[in-house]
């Protein structure tokens, strides 16, 4: 049961985080195409925002790993 919950949870985490990071990537690529001279700033902001999403996703992923090994 813990294994099943961990698998479903990891899948849902992947959906959410992938959607969020996809949105960031879309916006970043669009704005780099619009203003190529600002690409350094945009890349920094993109990595920072992606890291914030990734932090939430990883907290969820670690809950799933804990479920696999300890539940």
């Amino acid at each position: 049961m813990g294994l099943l919950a961990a698998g479903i949870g990891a899948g849902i985490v992947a959906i959410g985080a992938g959607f969020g990071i996809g949105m960031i990537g879309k916006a970043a690529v669009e704005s780099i195409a619009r203003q190529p001279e600002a690409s350094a700033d945009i890349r920094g902001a993109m990595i920072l925002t992606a890291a914030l999403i990734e932090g939430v996703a990883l907290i969820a992923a670690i809950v799933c790993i804990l479920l696999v090994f300890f539940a």
Partner: protein
Amino acid sequence: MEINIDQIIYWEWGFIKLNATLVYSWAVMVVLVSISWFVSRDLTEGTGISRKQALIESLVVVIQKQIEETTQEKTDRYLPFIGTLFLFILVSNLISVIPGVYPPTASLSTTAALAISVFVAVPIFGIGSRGVKSYFENYVKPTPLMLPFNIIGELSRTLALAVRLFGNIMSGSLIVAILLGLSPLFFPVVMQAFGLLIGVIQAYVFAILALVYIASASRIHNSEEADSTEIINPQNR
């Protein structure tokens, strides 16, 4: 396959245990300290600097420029703390390519210690640059109702800082271990190379987030002045 490198114990005497986290974080410290000791023996100025000094100077200048770009102020105040965090995490992440070596940042103890040092550094830098009263007024800034949310936000971002670094590095080595069981020849090498990229990005992210937290706590005063000048300027035009 080890999920918790705190449980790999190399040497034990009574209640003193030397686990992998301790050993490798001390190894990283020895590497960093010996390199900087070796380089800073014969520092010179002018054009005739040695090759090793040029190498380390260019590294420090890159960190300095990044700090200036992020905080939008010309100061060297954050350089020692943020630079040390960045270099320590970077070297810790990168030593995982050596076979048999576990990165110390794959342990929640190390990353929690780093995140707590950021948590402590925020009020130290904030009070140091703005004074006690001005710093604590920041917690009740829009209304006193926001006090609990500000405190919760500060705690949760510390937790996120620790778990982000731990999760990335731990899952990187875990994926390599799982892939070694499935397809031992090719894919672990690719994932290991990918893990190097992740390690550099995570060191950058940790340092930049720590910098943003510290700078935002110590710089509200300036931004208020900037806002007021922005409001005044259109009237002048």
